[in-house]
């Protein structure tokens, strides 16, 4: 169908992601999905808050967490949110190459975040013996933070698939909604992380 929707300066719509019915439906459907994701993460946050004191004699939040690494991870993810805004800016200017470039930077930042998270989990397991099975706190912590990390992993695979599949196609009205919906997903991951660094790490350090 893409040949019907090829873009050039005369046919370029203001919002290529919503110029087709399919695009509009994806846009609405994806926001509906994000509403559901909000509830999913609320359940995990509620469980974590209820169980974080149940350490079964193991390390507490205050023993485990270090603010330096969390700060670096926060900056990485927040910056990757901005780079995907840049990517959508170039999409609206019909500049496919620059869009791919900024999405590539987003992917690099996402992988850096994921690397930090793996290092962090590895550190807790080997230095503190703090695992998923250590305590109710351990289960709740790894479920909540791990689910977020899983979302990042899925997002990165999704992004790479989009970038590689469409590399030679260029931007058209068929793939513009796909890129746009990905950017919404990526921002949502950052939204969840804002609550994780606040509720889990910062509030865990306060007591």
């Amino acid at each position, binding site marked *: 169908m*893409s*040949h019907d929707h*090829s*873009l*050039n*300066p005369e046919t*370029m719509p*203001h919002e290529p992601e*919503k110029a087709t019915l399919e695009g509009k439906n994806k*846009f*609405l459907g994806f*926001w*509906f999905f*994000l*509403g*559901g*994701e*909000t*509830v999913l*993460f*609320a*359940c995990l*946050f*509620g*469980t974590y*808050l*209820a169980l974080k004191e149940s350490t079964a004699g193991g390390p507490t939040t205050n023993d485990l967490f270090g*603010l330096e690494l969390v*700060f670096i991870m*926060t*900056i990485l993810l*927040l910056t990757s*949110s*901005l780079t995907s*805004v*840049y990517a959508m*800016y170039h999409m*609206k*200017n*019909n*500049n*496919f*190459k620059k869009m791919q470039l900024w999405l590539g930077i987003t992917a690099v930042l996402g992988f850096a975040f994921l690397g930090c998270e793996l290092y962090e989990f590895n550190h807790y397991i080997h230095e503190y013996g703090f695992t998923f099975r250590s305590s109710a706190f351990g289960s709740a912590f790894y479920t909540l933070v791990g689910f977020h990390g899983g979302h990042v992993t899925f997002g990165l695979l999704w992004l790479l698939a989009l970038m590689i599949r469409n590399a030679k*196609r*260029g*931007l*058209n009205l068929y793939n513009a909604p796909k890129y746009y919906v990905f950017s919404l997903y990526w*921002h*949502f991951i*950052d*939204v969840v992380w*804002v*609550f994780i*660094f*606040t509720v889990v790490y*910062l*509030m865990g*350090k*306060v*007591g």
Partner: protein
Amino acid sequence: MAENTNSNEVNPYQKRKNKLEMQKQLITFALMILFTIIAFVIVATGMMQKMFVIPVLLILAIIQVAFQFYYFMHMKDKGHDMPALMIYGGIWAALLTLAGLGVITWW
């Protein structure tokens, strides 16, 4: 697909509008970094009493998330009534969930 010109030209008015929009996004990003740094500094220096720290941290987080939704995810723009309905519906159900879990744990 061969017709894809992928030229960088867009109507100049629209291009200028996009640029102005991007400037707003950059200001949003700067503010979000600022809020993040404030939150970390409050906790790292232990400058505030425990009773006040948690509400302040939560307020900073909510402001940051509002920026993310309204600017980065364009909820401030036209045609986002349904997305706002969906996300506020989700937030409503999320608050009920948190309240429910809180009540069975601490009541």
